[in-house]
C-alpha cells in the first residue's frame, strides 16, 4: 500500500505537465470529509491559495483582485488528484498546463505587456 506524505511530498512540490513545462507548485490540497474518513480531492494552485495560507484576509483581497482579471476567476485553481502522480520529488500532471487556468496570468502578461515591447 503506497503511503504518501501529503505535507512533505505533495504540498509545495513542483508540478510538471505533459509538455515538460513547469505548471506551478502545489499551493494547497483539498480534502473531502465524509463521516470519519477523508479523501484527497484536488490540488490547488495559485496566488489566492497562497495568500490564504498567510492570512485569510489577504486571501480574500487577492481573490477580489483576481476576479477583476476576467471571467470566472476569483477562485483558486483546482486540479483533480486523479490527474496527479508522484515523481519524487516533483509531481506529474497528465494535462497540459495551457489547458488549465494555471497559465492565465502568464498568458495575460504575455499579451498585455511582453508582446508590446519591441524585439520580444
Amino acid at each position, binding site marked *: 500500500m503506497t503511503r504518501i506524505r501529503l505535507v512533505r511530498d505533495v504540498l509545495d512540490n513542483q508540478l510538471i505537465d505533459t509538455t515538460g513545462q513547469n505548471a506551478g507548485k502545489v499551493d494547497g490540497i483539498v480534502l473531502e470529509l465524509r463521516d470519519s474518513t477523508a479523501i484527497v480531492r484536488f490540488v490547488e494552485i495559485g496566488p489566492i491559495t497562497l495568500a490564504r495560507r498567510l492570512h485569510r484576509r489577504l486571501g480574500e483581497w487577492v481573490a477580489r483582485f483576481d476576479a477583476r482579471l476576467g471571467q470566472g476567476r476569483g477562485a483558486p485553481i483546482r486540479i483533480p488528484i486523479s490527474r496527479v502522480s508522484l515523481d519524487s520529488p516533483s509531481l506529474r500532471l497528465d494535462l497540459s498546463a495551457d489547458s488549465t487556468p494555471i497559465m492565465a496570468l502568464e498568458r495575460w502578461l*504575455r499579451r498585455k505587456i*511582453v508582446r508590446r515591447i519591441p524585439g*520580444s
Partner: protein
Amino acid sequence: MKRLLSVALGIVTSVGGFLEIGSITTAAQAGADFRYKLIWSIVLGTLCIALLIEMSGRFAAVSKHTIADAVRERFGLDFFLVPLVLVLLISLLVLAAEIGGVAVAVELVTGIHFPVWVLPVGLLAWGLLWYGTFSIIENGVSLLGLITIAFVVAALQLGPDWHALSAGLAPSLPDKRPAHYWFVAVSILGASISPYLFYFYSAGAIEERWDVTYLGSNRAVAAIGMGFGGFLSIAVLVVAALVLAPRGISIQEYTQLPLLLTTHWGRVGLGLFAGSLFITCLGATAEIALALAYQVAQGFGWNWGEDLEPSGDARFSLTYTIVLLVATLLVLTGLDPLKLTTLSMALTAASLPVAILPFLLLMNDETYLGEHTNGWLGNVSILVISVLAGVVAIVAIPLEIAGGS
C-alpha cells in the same frame, strides 16, 4: 577537452565577475584605514563563498533542482518566504549600489554628475537581460571584467611590504578605531558572501544542464575562480594601503576611489578604474536582478530561464524588470552611493545566518543529494562563519552609524 575549456571559462568568469562596487569599496576602505590588517577578512569571505558556490553547484548538478525551488519544496511556504523577503530587500539595496557604481564610472569619464546616468544605466542593464542570453551576459561581461587585473599590476608595481602583508592574513585585533575595524571587517564578509550569488550559481548550473559528471569541474571553478577573485580583492586592499594610507586618506567620498589608480598612473589610471567599475558593476547588476527573479520564479514554480524568450516566461522576465526598476528608483532618491554600498554590504553580512540556514540544511538532505551530502567540515565552517558574521554585523552596524561616517 571541451570540459577543460568549460572549466577554464568558468574560472575566468568567476574571476572577472568577482569584483564589484562592494568588494572594491570595502577593500579600499580596509587598506586605507587599516593597511594590511584586514586581509584575513577577505580570505575568510573568499573561503566561505568558495564553499557555498561549490555546494550550490553540487546541489544543482545532483538533484537537478535549484536552491530556491528546493527550499520551498522541502520547508514549505513560510520558511521559503522569510529568507526570500529578507534577501530581496537587502539585495535591492545592493542592486541600487551597483547601478550607482556604473553611473559613477560614467561620471568619472564624462565629468557629468552621476544621477543623470542612472536611468540610462538601468535601461542598459534591462536591455542586456531582455535581449541577451545567459552565456552572452555571463561570459561577455566577465571576460571584460578581467580589466580588474590592473589592480594586481598596480599592487606589484608599488611593491608591498610582504612581511606586513602576510601578517595580515591572520586575524588580529585592531589597535585603533575598533568599532570601525569590525564594521569594515563584516562589510568585507558581506561583499564576498552574497546570498544572491549561490541562488544565481545553482540556477546557472541548471540552465547549463549540469549533471553528476560536472562535480569535479564545479569544485575547480569554485576553488580556483573564487580564489583568484579573492586575490583581486586583496590587490585592491594592497593598493589602498600603499597609496591612500600613507597620505592619511580615508575614503569618505566616492570621488576618492579613483585615487587608487590615478595617483601613479594619471589619466590611464582613471580610464582603467572607470572601466573596471563600469564593467564589474554592470555585470553585478545583471546578476543580482537575475538572481532575484530566479528566486521568486523558482519558489512559485513558474517557467524561468534567461535563454528563453521573454514571451516564454513572462512572469520571470517581468520580475527582473520590476526589480531593476525599483533599484533604479532607489538610486534616484539621492542616496550617497558610497554610504549605500558600505551599508548594504554590512546588512548582507547581518542577514547571512537566515539566508544560509535553509541552504545548509538542504545540503545535508539525502533525498536531493544522495551520497553527495556535505561533510561535517563544510557544515561547521559555513555555520560558524555565517553566525559570526551575523552577530558581529548586528553589533557593528549601529556603532558605525552612531560613531562613524
